[in-house]
Each structure stands twice: as structure tokens, then as C-alpha cells.
């Protein structure tokens, strides 16, 4: 009885809220409808990670096998290494990437030449359009032993050729560099827009009070960018075990000599399943990545809620 009346009360509250704010609900509805249809209706399909997928039976009628599909991840003992690699690379991309994007956004804001600003902004965005396949080809052009651009330069300087593609250690720097090169132009747009939203009058007032340019940057621009930075960080954390398959697959590809330092979860799984069609195992990995991201975001969001409640995601 108690439960039913509480339910009724809750429903009543919802209804009242609905009526009171009906315009707001209506305005929100297209977006909610989108997520319900394209995401929530599909989400139960993640169950396929726990079954032995059979084509004619479909996802929900296939045999339940519990955690069997996750076994291949732990069997070779590689799970720790690929998780570690994925985490480290993504942290590097996230932290370093965002910092560099902020720095560039500020730099673009601080310079005075208008045409330089416009041109460099557009040019910086070019790498975003160059597909990773072509990047891989260009990288090979740069680093290969016999005819690579860098080796040719080394030789002309009187130095020895270097076997880039046999040295795992150097690739973490190369990969991070390529990622930064590819993502900065795009990522800094958000920061640019945020800075542009800062009222110029505020800067003027600060100048009147005697603040130098660097002080203005430190005490005004940076704090203004903090909420955006935290938002992007939280989003990035949710996908901390995923992503960047294209980058790694095209730069490293089949060169297994480099794998210990450059193998990430997505490339590992791609390789494992290339000889057999096994949709469930792929989905199992996806589930692992999602779960990890979920726990991480929850934790960090809680921390953010304590420190900077306005910036928390939820």
C-alpha cells in the first residue's frame, strides 16, 4: 500500500511538472526522442556480449554463456598491457591535447594581425580532413628505412640511417605527435569560441587596474576556460578505453615488432577476431570498455561535484 501510494505521488509530481513546464518539455522532446530511438532502443543489444550469437536465432534467443566471451582477453595475459597502453595514450591525448589546444587558442587570441589569425586558423584545421589512411602512407614515406624523408635527411647530414619501424620505443612519441597534429585545429575551436565569449570590457577594466598581458591570461582567460576544459575532460574519460583505432591501425598496422608499446585494445581485438566471425566477442570487449569508462566518469564526476559543482556533468 505504502509503495503504491508513493508511486502515485511520484507520478503525480511528474505530471504536475510536465504541465507546469510543458513548453520546456516540448522543446526538449525532439532530442529525447532521438536518444530513445537511436540509442536506448538499441542498447539492449549489448546483451549479445553474454551469448553465443547464432544468426538464425538472433541476439536474444541465442544461448547464454555468461562471461565466456571475455575469456580471450585474459587468456594470453595481454589484457594488462593493452589496457595500460590504451589508458596511457588516451590520457596523453586528453591532457596534452587539451592543454595544447588551450595554449594555441590563447595564442591566436593574443596576436593582432587579423589575416594571420584567419589563415592560421583555417590551415590548422586541415589535418582534420586528411584521412588516417593517407596519414599512414605519409608516415611510411617519412620514416621508412630506404627512401624515407627523414633518413634521406640524416644521410645528407652525414649520419646513419635509422630503422624507425623496428624501434618500438620511439613510436609513442611519434603517435602522440601525430594525434596532436591531427586534433589540435579541431579541438581548439571550442576554446576559441569560449574566449570569444568573454567580454572585452572586462579585459579593459583589468588593464586599467594595471594588469599585464600575462596576468590577464592567467587570471581571466584561464579561469574562463576551466568549465569547458572540465567538460571535455569528463567526456574524454568516458571513452578512455576506446577510440583512435584508425590512427593506430594505419600508423602501426601489421608491424608486430612495435606492438608491445603501441598495441591498444581496439587493435588487439581487431586482430584476434580477424580469422573468425564472432560478433559476441567483439561486443564483450565493447562492454568492458564501456563499463570501465562508466566507473571512471562516475568517480571523477563525484570529485568535480565537490570542487566545482557547476561543472559537474550530472
Amino acid at each position, binding site marked *: 500500500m505504502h509503495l503504491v501510494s508513493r508511486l502515485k505521488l511520484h507520478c503525480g509530481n511528474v505530471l504536475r511538472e510536465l504541465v507546469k513546464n510543458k513548453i520546456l518539455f516540448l522543446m526538449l522532446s525532439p532530442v529525447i526522442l532521438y536518444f530513445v530511438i537511436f540509442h536506448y532502443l538499441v542498447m539492449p543489444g549489448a546483451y549479445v556480449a553474454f551469448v553465443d550469437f547464432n544468426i538464425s536465432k538472433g541476439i536474444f534467443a541465442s544461448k547464454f554463456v555468461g562471461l565466456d566471451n571475455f575469456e580471450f582477453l585474459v*587468456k594470453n595475459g595481454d589484457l594488462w598491457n593493452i589496457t595500460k597502453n590504451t589508458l596511457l595514450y588516451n590520457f596523453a591525448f586528453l591532457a596534452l591535447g587539451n592543454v595544447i589546444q588551450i595554449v594555441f587558442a590563447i595564442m591566436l587570441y593574443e596576436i593582432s594581425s587579423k589575416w594571420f589569425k584567419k589563415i592560421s586558423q583555417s590551415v590548422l584545421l586541415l589535418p582534420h580532413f586528411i584521412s588516417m589512411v593517407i596519414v599512414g602512407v605519409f608516415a611510411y614515406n617519412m620514416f621508412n628505412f630506404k627512401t624515407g624523408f627523414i633518413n634521406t635527411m640524416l644521410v645528407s647530414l652525414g649520419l646513419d640511417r635509422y630503422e624507425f619501424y623496428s624501434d618500438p620505443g620511439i613510436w609513442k612519441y611519434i603517435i602522440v605527435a601525430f594525434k596532436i597534429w591531427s586534433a589540435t585545429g579541431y579541438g581548439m575551436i571550442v576554446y576559441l569560441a569560449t574566449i570569444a565569449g568573454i567580454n572585452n570590457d572586462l579585459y579593459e577594466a583589468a588593464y586599467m587596474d594595471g594588469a599585464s598581458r600575462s596576468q590577464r591570461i592567467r587570471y581571466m582567460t584561464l579561469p574562463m576556460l576551466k568549465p569547458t576544459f572540465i567538460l571535455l575532460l569528463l567526456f574524454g574519460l568516458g571513452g578512455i578505453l576506446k577510440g583512435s583505432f584508425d590512427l593506430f591501425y594505419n600508423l602501426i598496422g601489421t608491424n608486430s615488432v612495435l606492438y608491445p608499446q603501441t598495441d591498444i585494445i581496439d587493435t588487439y581485438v581487431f586482430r584476434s577476431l580477424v580469422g573468425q566471425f564472432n560478433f559476441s566477442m567483439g561486443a564483450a570487449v565493447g562492454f568492458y570498455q564501456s563499463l570501465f569508462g562508466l566507473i571512471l566518469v562516475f568517480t571523477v564526476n563525484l570529485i568535480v561535484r565537490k570542487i566545482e559543482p557547476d561543472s559537474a556533468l550530472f
Partner: protein
Amino acid sequence: MKGNKMKYPLILSSVMLLGSLLAGCSSSKEENTSSGSAAAGSSSASGSPAASDKTVNGVDISKEAKLVYYLWGSAGVANKDILAKINEKLKKDINATIEVKYIDWPDVATKYPLLFASGEKFDMSHASPGAAVSYFSLANQGALVDITDMLDKVAPKLKAEIPEQTWAGAKVNGKIYGVPSLYSEFTPTGFAYRSDLLKKYGMEKISSIADMEKYMDNVLANESYPPINGNANDAFNMYKMLVDTTDMWINAPGISLTELNLVTKSPEDYKKVFHPAFTQEFEDWAVKMRQWADKGYWPKDILSSQVDAGTNFRAANSAGYLTHAQDWIGKYGTDMKAQPESDPFFYTFAEANHKIKRKLGVENSTVISTNSANPERALMAIEKFMTDPEYYNLIQYGIEGRQYVIENGVKKTPAGFDDKKDGGGFAAWSLRNDKYNLPMDTENPIRNSLYEEWNKVAINDPYMGFSFDPKNVTTEIASISNVNQQLGMQLMLGKTTKDPKEAVAEYRKQLKAAGIDKVIAEVEAQLANFDKIG
């Protein structure tokens, strides 16, 4: 008034969302009729003859069937016209028309499995044990129609045309799930090399590994490009070289043949399988591969190379390339066009030990989906394509006079051929039949005589008719796949960081940890109940 104006965007977006769903719905009409459900309706244009009460082989063909046939590749410019001609005949004969849908080459790995897994409605498709989803998996998981009985009733001509042994190869648990091709080809792996360079070095031909090394040493000394300027894929070609040149080793099922797979000692011992990694021959081979890599037979960066040896060969950037025989034969025209002096010869690895296998028809099959609304008609269409020369020529070669002409029994490109208007064709290689196959002027003219020779000495695959069900060892296979693509690949190209013998020891350890023994046991257990055919 102002009030109305403001509501615009709100209504607009809701309508857009709704409208898109409705617009999407209208395209569904096309989807529904394409599989031609019996209820969907009567035949179309007035041109159709009185097919109303006709039956063929006991199948009621009074209602038109629209069949959907998924082929790989893409739609050439002239495909529409060729298909129109095909449909003209098909409508007359069995009151059916075909719509061809394409899965382009780069998308095969994604879209082909999706085709079956998503329950899409279509009728026919290509299938193969080595495809992204294996023919056997499809059959085992109920995605294909069991045509065993249907064949006798509906397509007796087809049943008679294909020999019993070939049908046996397509059987899964005693039932037939697909129509194998009747094209005899041989696909042993080998080394295609430039015969002009051969003559330059004063050699006659390459028929052993020693000859091959001599050729490659000469290339290193005299040419500006490497002997095998390939990519990581060549690791698996090197493995095939090992298997083919060693005793009577034959490929065995269990692990995908695109990796370092299991073998059996000889066709007679087919019930026992093992992995070569644990043999002395393998260790010796790994040492040899390292020597070859150090000598420079292939580039240092081969594991990351972006261009395959064949493409390099054609650009005069490689003295040879590794592939299978039929590919070398088929590429003859292209190779000669690019490098007219090269006239590539082929060193077949398996020839010396007489291990050239006849290709199983099931390797390229045509299957009917269980979602098809007209399985009988689909089968009848397949019968037409494989047993009627007029249909055969249309789907394989195009319209006579426009896409091809026959001169002296050889298929050639006609004089007025304009690639922009007449280019096209269907990748219907699973429907090929020796009887109607036309030799092409782009093929190596040696094909017929070579195949005749090989036909005399070829052996049958002892595993014909056996399909391995990997259900119990999917984890192990995935782990082994990983080991193969790392250390396995490195060993075969001599690129291990450790010394080869140490690396082989490590490889053996990793295979064991990945569960190779369990896989072998599973394969042997399933083989226990299998008896060799023929």
C-alpha cells in the same frame, strides 16, 4: 501574429523528425517488393505471356518473383543493360527477375556478415569457407536453405551437372546448403618472377628453393630493387612455402588458412593434425627466413610496407611476387601491359612433392538465404546460370559484341569497346562451369596446358566434405590468432628481435599458452567421425 511565428522552429523540428520517419517508410515499399512475397502481387507489364498456370518442375511460376542477388564488387556502367538482357530471358523461362545488389571490396569484411546477421531479406549470395563468415558457420547457424531435396525436384539438371563428389564437399551434417562452382582451377602458392631477368642471369627456370635463392641473389647484385618488395602479408606466403615444400604436409582445418595453420603429415594420416611450429623443419625455416631478411630479399620495413609486391612488380620495383597460381594466370595481361618484357613465370611450391590439390568446388559457392521468399525460383535461376550457355555468357562475360567477342575460341575485347560506356560485368565467379568457360586473352596462354598437366598429377583434398565447428574453441582460436599475427608473422619474415631459435621457442610457448593443444584435440575429435571421400 508574433505568437505564431515563434512556434515555427519547434514545429519544424518535430515535423522534420516525423517526416523523415515517413519518408523512410516510403522507401520500404521498394524493400518489401524486392523479395517478391507471393502476396505482393501479380506480374508487371503487359508483355508477359500467358504464364498464369504454368509450372516448371512442379514449381508454380504463375506469380512473378523478384530475386535479390548480392554480389561483391561494384556496379559497372553497363551492368544495367546486361542485367536487362538476363531478366528478359529469366522472365520468359521462370517468370522471375533479378536485382543485383553489391558489396564493394573494401566493405566486404563489415557488410557481408551483417547481411546474414541482420536478417536482411535477400535471395542469393556468394559464400565460401574462407569468407568473412565461413560458409560452414552460415550453414550451422541456420542462415542458409537446405537444398538437398529441392535439387532433385526443382533443379535436376543442376544436380546432374555437378559430380557427386563435388556435392559431397558442400555437405554439412549430410545436407547440402550451397551450390559449389564447377570451375577447375588450381591455386597452389608460388613465386611469380621475371623471365627476362632469368635469362639475363643465364638461368633456365626456378623449380626449387635453391634456384629461387640463386635468382634472388642475382637480383640483389644486379638490380636496384629487391627480389620480393612486398608487405606483411607475405609472411603467410612464406609459411605456405614452408608447408608446400616439406614432405607431404597438407593444410588441415582448425585454424584459419590465412594464418599459420595446422597441418597433417600426409593425405593418408589426415585424422591426425599438428602445428608445424613444434617441428625441426619449422625451426630451420625460421633461421632461413632470418638469413633471407638479413640478405635483403625483402625491405627492412616490410612489416609496415604499404604496397604489395604485385603492385611493385608492375611498377618495375620488385623482381617477383608471391601469390597463388590462378591469380598469376589472371594477372598476366595486366603484368604484361605494365612491363612488356617481364613475361612472369611461376615457381609452384607444391609441385615438386606432387602436392597440388584440386580446388574444392565449395570454395566458391552460391547460397540461398533462409529469408528468401522464393527459394525454389532462386535455385532455378542458379541452374540456368550454370547449365545454359546463353545465361552463362551473359552473367560471366556480358553482351556478345559489346563487352566481348570470340575469336578462335578465345574471348577478346571488341574493337569498338569504350570503357566509359561498355565497362562492367558481374563478379559471379562462384557460378563458373568448366564446360562453358571461355579462355581469355588476358590470361596466361599457358593456362590450359598447365592445368591439363596438373590435372594428371593433382591430388584430392583429404578434408573435402569436412567442416570444422569451432564452437568450443573460439577463445583459443582468437588467442592463437593474436600469437600468429605477432610472433608468427615476425618469424616468417625474419624480423624477430630475438635470435630465430630463441624466438621459435618463445612462439611454441605462446601457442601452448593460447591453447593450441585444445584446438588440436577438438579437431581430431571431430575428425574421428569423418571418413575421407574419394
